[in-house]
């Protein structure tokens, strides 16, 4: 019976992905045409809001059963979820600090980076979020095989993102970390984000391994949900880092 909603949820995830991709394109156009910081900020907030609501299901935090049995699975799930979101909140302060650092040191200037490459890696991460959402939906509807495939694709795209940023962008950048505050900020922001992508890939690897052993069910898959929320959070961070590094401000050679 759960399968009835399966295609509906999958379709919703796809529609959201299309809108996010469109907004990313709009963002790029704004950057190369009128460079309005205000518009770019609004687009980033809208994108992150959509990921938070539709992919990370932030509204689930409001679900609060009144079970007094503190050993029941439902009670544990709600508690775990709250704890994990508080961790995300804490981590968000780290990235907010990095953004503060970027705007304090660089103001409205930006480093000389390959914007096409930036758009490609952003696209890769966005597609990975789509597959992550797909994987979670499939798990929630008991499609174990689909989950394994979607999660594997997500992991591969995550590794692709890492290869794009660390393997290509870091090598091609026309500066090294010690050259200036600008280069230091670039390496620090992308490095800290890449570290989170890496931990996300490891997290997904653990979940994938345990899913293969059949440890998760449609009703009981907290680890999958946590990995999903973490993965989307890393995407949300990039939704802000990408314009901050590639789009906003005057180019400095």
């Amino acid at each position, binding site marked *: 019976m759960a399968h009835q909603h399966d295609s509906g949820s999958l379709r919703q995830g796809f529609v959201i992905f299309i809108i996010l991709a469109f907004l990313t394109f709009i963002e790029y156009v704004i950057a190369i045409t009128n460079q309005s910081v205000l518009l770019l900020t609004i687009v980033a907030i809208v994108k992150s809001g959509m990921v938070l609501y539709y992919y990370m299901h932030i509204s689930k935090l409001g679900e609060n059963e009144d079970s*007094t049995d*503190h050993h029941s699975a439902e*009670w544990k799930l*709600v*508690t775990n979820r*709250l*704890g994990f979101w*508080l*961790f995300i*909140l*804490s*981590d968000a*302060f*780290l990235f907010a*600090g*990095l953004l*503060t*650092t970027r705007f*304090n*040191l*660089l103001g409205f200037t930006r480093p000389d980076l390959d914007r096409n490459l930036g758009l490609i890696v952003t696209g890769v991460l966005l597609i990975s979020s789509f597959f992550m959402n797909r994987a979670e939906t499939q798990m929630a509807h008991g499609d174990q095989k689909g989950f394994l495939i979607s999660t594997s694709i997500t992991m591969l795209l995550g590794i692709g993102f890492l290869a794009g940023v660390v393997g290509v962008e870091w090598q091609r950048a026309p500066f090294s*970390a*010690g*050259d*200036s*505050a*600008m*280069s*230091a*900020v670039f*390496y*620090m922001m992308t490095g800290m984000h890449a570290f989170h992508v890496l931990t996300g890939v490891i997290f997904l690897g*653990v979940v994938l*391994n*345990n899913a293969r*052993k059949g*440890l998760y069910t449609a009703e009981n898959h907290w680890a999958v949900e946590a990995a999903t929320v973490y993965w989307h959070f890393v995407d949300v961070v990039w939704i802000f880092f990408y314009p901050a590094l590639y789009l906003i401000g005057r180019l400095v050679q």
Partner: protein
Amino acid sequence: MKKSSSRGFGTALLLFILGLIAGTVVAVLLHTLTTGKFENGYLLDLPSWLLGALVAVVAFLYALIGYYGVVKGLLWQVAGTLLGALFVTALRAALGMPYSDMNTFWFTESAWVTGVMVGTLFFLAGVGAITDWYKMALGQTVSEHHTDVPGFRKYFGVSLDHKVIGIQYTFTSLLLLSVGGLFALVFRTELAQAGMQFLSIELYNTLMSLHGMVMIVSILLGIAGVMNYLVPMMIGAQDMAFPRLNAFSFWIAIPAAVILLSSLALGGFDTGWTGYPPLSVRAPLGMSMFFVGVWVAGWSSILGALNLIVSVLRLRAKGMIAFRMPIFVWAATATSIISLTATQMIGLAFQLVLFQRLLGMPFFDSTKGGNPILFQHLFWFYSHPVVYVFVLPGLGVISELLPVFVRKPLFGYKWVAMSSLGIALVGFLVWAHHMFASGMNEYLRVPFMFSTLLVAVPTGVKFFSWVATLWQGKLVRDLPTPMLFVLGGIVVFLLGGLTGPPNATVSTDLHLTDTYYIVGHFHDTMFGGYIFPFFASIYYWFPKATGKRLNEKLGKWHFWLMTPSFLILTLFMMRVGLLGMRRRIGDYDPAMGFGLWQMAMTIAAFLIAAAILIFFYNIYLTVKSGENATGNVWKSRSPEWQVPSPMPVYNYEHEFEVVGEPYDYGLPGSVYVKINSEEV
């Protein structure tokens, strides 16, 4: 049983002394072998002596508890540190980079930093704090049930019981308090006279800087200890929401403390506890140990806060709505909101300096577009709110204990509850008042001045409530020790509060900044908001934890020796500050005319130390042969006192229900909690 444990203690002491000698000799030998010279090899060379101390501590603990828990963790940490450092050294050698540096104790700085980080992971693996998670990652099922080893050994290894963890935290906090206090005594003695008598300027700077940060870590662990012990009991829970995370939060603080203290041996540093660049970019290797140590301790704080917030939101007993929670729970929640979020900022600030030191990334180098002021913004965004982390639980303890001892309801419960949150939230908006003289944009000064003065409003609410609660209260003639510390805390915190606005006001702060006046003000707030309530809570809840009551007579000696000495110390600090004594400086001009004040302060500091020794002796005496106290010693209404002491493992055998207001002392017929024992 008793006999063998006392023999174990004798062996432990012997091993301590032997370990001290052996460690020192090994360090001197290493030093002589690697440098080929014996010229610096006198036996009290600081690094050698500290290695000896580490060996001694491990040997002592080994004799006490065997190869278990913290002993295993510390040994693994040493091994992990060496492995990490050797790995980086090998990597550097393979890449053709310089791989050894005699100025930074054989290894390069990057090898040391990597080493201590790997060492931290090894400690956690060795002590067993991450075993369950590792098994879960492999897909095995693990039990969350408490299975503690019997006897006192459970305090030295991983336990999931929030009460054990609370005591572990508190004990570690007291240990670090002693270390930090010892540092203070050493450099306070140096300050008794003008000129440098027995410390070098470098060592003075290191001790002064470490005193600050060791005390801060001690306070963070102290509040975590009290909150861990009390909050689940007060809200009627069996444990914290995440017991494993709770144990992890405690155990990660141990390697953090070891790394922080290792900076003393590894070259020291001279920035004060703030670690401002550009000085911190140039400081010796000890600076990096300081940064890494604080960063690791920050995780303890963040994860502990997360656990506490979730526990308060999810684990309250039936009927315990928000406005029936004990004030201490409100204070702990407000504190945890700050720890959870703002701690990331100091972590980031310290990481940025580390990256500049290790990789040359010029975040704070103004010749390459960096900005040292940025560090101060990030640093104070945490480090100002964190003083509220230090004092809010203490102020909560004051509000908690006052009604018990005056047998009257707490005045303005809701206002007091909200004032903690108010202080926490306003606390996020005041950080730049530490930077009035830093050269930041001038237009920022006035808004930050006003937001800072605004903090006085919620704090004033608390004072008003305390005074109104005391008003016409039924105080007994011979005040019990916890109440003495509560009243002492109120007076000292008032002094700290009243000396604050001159620093918050730009015009006067420009004169006062970086003087000893600030030091006096700060110590008043810390003692009034933390130390006094901390001791009050230890005296108050000691019977709950052990079933024995601390000796009243010794407790009063502790209080009456410490309080006047402390007041003399801080009032004189402010006095010499107004006369022009700079803070953080090891020497002063005898012509300034405050030699006598300095001598008086040093004597006062030693009297405080004597009072603390009395306190430790009191604990020793009580644990050994104290008066039994298993009942409701203070006639409290709080749920934890409604069951016999010491508390059973899962706290309450029967669920209880909150049916009334928490602080209706003296009102006939009022009930706060009803324990459903027989009715069901």
